C-alpha cells in the first residue's frame, strides 16, 4: 500500500474504509440521510458518544436517579470534609455535598449550553449562508453587521442584556443567560459557514446543478450546505463547551444564573479559589464538564463524517 492510500484509509472516527458493496446500492434509491444512518450505526464512536449524551441528558432531567442527597444541605462545619458513605466526592467550601451538587448542576449547565448553542447555530447558519451564497450587497451588509456585533465588547453586551432580560425575582434566569450567550456567540459560526460557502459555490458541481435547473433554495440546502457544513459543526460542538464554561464567568459577575442556582460553571469558579488546599471540589465538576463536551464533540464528528458527501 502506498503512503497515500495509508493516509486515505486511516482508521478513525469516520466512515468505513470500503464503500458499501454494490449489491446493496441497487436495491432501492437511497438518500444522503439513509446512507449516513447506515454508516453511523456501524461506528463505535457514535454509540459511545450517544450513550454519554443520553446519560447526561437523563442526569439533567432526573437527578434523583443518581443521588438521594440534597445539594442544598450545606453545613459549614463540614467544610472540605473528605468522602464518606454516599457522599462520593466529599464536601466543598460551604460544606455541601460535591457529588450531589455535580449531579444537580447538570440540568442548568446542559440546558444553558444546548439552548445557547442552538440559538447561535440557527442565527449563524442563516446569516452566514445568505451572505456567502448571495454575495453582492447582501454579503456586504451582513458581513458589516457581523463586524458591528463583533465590535461590541462581550462583557458590556452581556451585562446590559442580562439586566434587561432578567425575568421575575424568583427565576434562575436560564433563559436570559442562554439568550445572552446565543446572541453574542453566533458570529464565529456565521463567518465560518460564510467562508466555506464562498469556497464551494464556485465549484463545478454547483454550476452543473444550476444548469440542470436547480433553484437557489435547492442549491443551498442539497448541494452547497452538506459540503460546507464540516467546519461549522466543529465550531458548534466546541461552542457548546465554551458556553457552559462562559456561564460561570457571567455568574461570577452577578449577571449569570441567580437565586441560588446550581451549575457546573458556578461550582468550578467557586472551587477554583481554594484549589491549592482543596482540589477535589474543582476536579469533579470539571471532569463532568469535560466528559459532556467530549461526548458532544465526538457525536458531532461522527454525524458530520457520516453526512459528508465528499467521503462517499
Amino acid at each position, binding site marked *: 500500500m502506498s503512503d497515500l492510500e495509508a493516509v486515505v484509509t486511516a*482508521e*478513525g472516527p469516520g466512515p468505513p474504509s470500503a464503500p458499501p458493496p454494490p449489491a446493496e446500492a441497487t436495491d432501492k434509491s437511497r438518500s444522503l440521510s439513509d446512507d449516513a444512518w447506515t454508516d453511523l450505526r456501524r461506528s463505535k464512536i457514535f454509540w459511545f458518544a450517544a450513550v454519554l449524551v443520553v446519560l447526561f441528558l437523563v442526569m439533567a432531567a432526573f437527578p434523583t436517579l443518581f443521588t438521594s442527597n440534597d445539594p442544598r444541605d450545606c453545613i459549614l462545619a463540614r467544610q472540605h470534609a473528605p468522602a464518606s458513605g454516599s457522599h462520593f466526592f466529599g464536601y466543598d467550601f460551604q460544606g455541601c455535598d460535591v457529588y450531589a451538587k455535580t449531579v444537580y448542576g447538570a440540568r442548568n449547565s446542559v440546558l444553558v449550553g444546548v439552548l445557547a448553542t442552538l440559538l447561535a447555530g440557527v442565527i449563524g447558519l442563516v446569516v452566514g449562508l445568505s451572505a456567502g451564497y448571495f454575495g453582492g450587497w447582501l454579503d456586504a451588509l451582513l458581513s458589516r453587521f457581523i463586524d458591528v456585533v463583533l465590535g461590541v465588547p462581550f462583557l458590556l453586551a452581556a451585562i*446590559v442584556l442580562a*439586566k434587561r432580560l432578567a425575568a421575575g425575582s424568583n427565576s434562575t434566569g436560564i433563559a436570559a443567560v442562554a439568550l445572552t450567550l446565543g446572541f453574542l456567540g453566533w458570529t464565529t459560526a456565521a463567518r*465560518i459557514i460564510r467562508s*466555506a460557502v464562498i469556497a464551494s459555490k464556485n465549484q463545478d458541481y454547483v454550476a452543473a446543478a444550476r444548469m440542470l435547473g436547480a433553484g437557489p433554495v435547492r442549491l443551498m440546502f442539497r448541494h452547497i450546505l452538506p459540503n460546507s457544513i464540516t*467546519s461549522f459543526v466543529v465550531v458548534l460542538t*466546541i461552542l457548546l463547551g465554551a458556553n457552559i464554561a462562559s456561564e460561570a464567568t457571567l455568574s461570577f459577575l452577578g449577571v449569570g444564573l441567580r437565586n441560588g442556582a446550581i451549575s457546573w460553571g458556578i461550582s468550578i469558579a467557586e472551587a477554583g479559589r481554594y484549589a491549592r488546599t482543596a482540589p477535589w471540589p474543582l476536579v469533579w465538576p470539571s471532569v463532568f464538564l469535560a466528559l459532556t463536551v467530549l461526548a458532544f464533540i465526538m457525536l458531532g464528528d461522527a454525524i458530520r463524517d457520516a453526512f*459528508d458527501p465528499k467521503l462517499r
Partner: protein
Amino acid sequence: MFRYLVRRLLQMVVTFFGATFIVYALMFANQDDPIRALAGERPISQAERQVLTERYHLDASFWHQYWYYLKGMLTGDFGTSLTGRRISDMMADAWPVTVRLALMAIVIAAAVAILAGVISGIRRGGIFDNVTLVLTLIVLALPIVVLAPLSQLIFGIKLDWFPPTAGLHPSAYALLLPALVLGSLVVATELRVTRSAVGENLRADYVRTARAKGLTRQRVVGVHVLRNSLIPVITLIGVDIGGLMSGAIVTEGVFNIPGVGFNLFRGIHTEDGPLVVGFVSVLVIVFLVVNLLVDLLYAALDPRIRYE
C-alpha cells in the same frame, strides 16, 4: 480588485459609526447612576454630584450626549473619563501592551493549532490525535477564571519558570505565560477546525492526482492540502485577534497587565461611558482592518474565489 477595496473602505466607515453608536447606546442603557458607580460604597455629597453632572453633561438627553461625543471624536478628542484623566492618555498606555500580548497569544496559538491540527488530521485516531483531544478538553473545561490563576500558581510561583506578574511595561519573557494562557482560549477551536479540514481535504481527488504525478507527501500536504485547509482557520484567527484584545479581562487582571481588557472592565464597572466608547472605537477599527485582511487572504489562498 481596486473597486472592491474602495467599496470595503467606504463600508468600514459606515460600520465604524454603527458599532460605536451601538456601544454608546448600550453604555447609556447600562447607566443608572455613574456618579454613584464611581464612588463605590461611600456616600456622595450633593455638591460633588452637581459638579460631575454638569462637567460630563450627564443630565442631557441621550442624543445631546451622543452629539457631544461625536463632536469631540471628529476633532480627535476622545474626551475625559469620569475620573478626570484624558482618554487618549489612557489609550496610549493601554494599547501597546495589549497588542503585544494579543499578537504573541495568537501567533503561539495559531502555530500550535495548525501544527497539531495537521498532524492529527493526517493520523486520525492515532495516539497523537487522542492525546491532543484530551488536552483540548482539559483546557476547554476549565473556565479562564480558574485556568489563569492556576497557571500563575504552578508555573509562576511553584515552579518559578516565569515571573508571576507582568505590569505595564513587561519584557517579552514576562508576557509569555499570560500569552500562553490567553492563547489557550482559542487554540482548541483552531486545532479542531484545522484537523477536520485537513482530514477532509486529504480524501479529495486532487490529492490522489498529485500523488499519482509523483509528488512527495511533504509537498502534497505542505503545499496543496494546507492551502485549502487554512481557509476556515484563517477566518477563526481573524475573529480571535479582536476577541483576544477586548476579552482578555481575566488574564490581564490575574497577571496585572493594565491593558485594553482591564480598562474596558473598569469602564463598564464604573459606568464610564466615554472611556468604554473611546476604547471600543479603536477596537472596531482593528476588527475591520483584520477582517479585510482575512477576506483578501481567502482570495490569495484559493484562486477560485474572485472579488470584483
